[in-house]
């Protein structure tokens, strides 16, 4: 049909936009949760975008402060990077949980993009957990950058492209690119 239809269909495919067939699934929410969402409508969509800010920035900041330490030699930057890893470690499960909640509530249709986003988020959490544990057990890991320790740096740096890809998919759900063209 018209352009509206095309855009809506694309959005429905990408966003799993709720159609009439999804109403039943929405109603399938546990009663208490349903009441809570009805009373506080912002809980329907806001929690995931709000929470996901944290892992995104913490992961990027961990990479950035690590590089800043290597460039300047200021050790407090390395400690800040470690704290950012901790922030990422704590906030990623919250982002995953709210993401799953948002998906179940608003985009119940199976969507390969959302599945990929979820899998990459699990990988991100595994990586940040590994890096955090490594740094916790060996606080000098970045100060003696040789041999196996080099992989620690790679691990921390790899957080940046990974979280960028995940947030790109998230951004496309909120502001679909095909609607901008």
């Amino acid at each position, binding site marked *: 049909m*018209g352009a509206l239809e095309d855009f809506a269909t694309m959005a429905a495919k990408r966003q799993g*936009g709720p159609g*009439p067939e999804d109403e039943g699934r929405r109603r399938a929410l546990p009663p208490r949760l349903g009441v809570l969402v009805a009373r506080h409508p912002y809980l329907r969509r*806001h929690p995931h*975008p709000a929470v996901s800010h944290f892992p995104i920035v913490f992961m990027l900041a961990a990479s950035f402060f690590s590089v800043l330490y290597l460039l300047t030699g200021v050790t407090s930057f390395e400690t800040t990077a470690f*704290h950012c890893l901790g922030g990422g470690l704590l906030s990623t499960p919250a982002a995953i949980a709210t993401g799953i909640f948002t998906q179940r509530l608003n985009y119940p249709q199976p969507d390969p993009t959302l599945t990929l986003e979820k899998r990459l988020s699990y990988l991100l959490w595994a990586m940040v957990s590994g890096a955090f544990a490594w740094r916790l057990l060996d606080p000098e890991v970045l100060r003696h950058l040789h041999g196996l320790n080099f992989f620690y740096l790679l691990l921390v740096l790899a957080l940046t492209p990974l979280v960028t890809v995940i*947030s790109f998919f998230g951004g496309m759900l909120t*502001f679909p690119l095909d609607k901008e063209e």
Partner: protein
Amino acid sequence: MSGRTLCSPTMPGRTQGSPLQKHKKETSLPEDQKKFTLKELAQLNGAGGRPAFIAYRGRVYDVSDSARWAGGKHMAAHFAGADLTGEFPDAPHGEEVFAGYPQVGVLQTSPELPETQEAEVSGPPPGFLDRLLKRFPLLKRHPHPMVVHFPIVFFVSTPIFTILYLLTGIGSFETTGWHCLGGGVLFTPVALVTGLFTWWLNYELRPLRPVVIKLILTPILLLVGAGAFAWRWLDPEILAQLPYWTGKVYLALLCVLLPLVSLIGWYGASLTFPRHAEK
């Protein structure tokens, strides 16, 4: 009653897809169209087998045949039988979507912007910018939401790490709080500039309440953040003076960042995910 028999449908001209070209579209309304009052329009809400009509900038469109308007609802957020002009800025698509639907009349109490008012808000974008945005459509809406992640998280983290230091006595938490403060101060002007760009490009500089509030609070946030950062830079032991008023004022400055940035973030989110759409 069938909406499609009310008058002969006409197809409004396409606006070439770009929301930028809102400025260039025709503003006069056809005179021979059926006129709907808001009350009449409200009856045509797609419920109970009735046609689904929507109004936008004074024009009334029939969306009854659209699967995405089934039951008079679109994306569970917009409802037929109403004037959607005010909701349109929230939509991630441009006006070109209306080209696919028959116009069945005009709204009697037309809220369409007069031509003069429209011309006043903002001019068409310069040619190079138009070309750039066509080549990289990502730049239309994404820069501001991308950038604002940084001041939000950094300014929230600043008081958290500082309080963590006060609770644990671990000095590196205080330093991390200060580094986060620096990050927030660095990224706030970038967020401000991208926000102004987005406002101009997508909202035609209209004085929307959330935008006005953000425009007032963001400079305050920047001022408080930059002041606290400079203070801590000049006096690294400032928090050690917590029993004195100087230390208390510094801590208060850090703590005030949290509600300030939360309010700004809240109003920003209300533009992306409008509350009325959630009800």
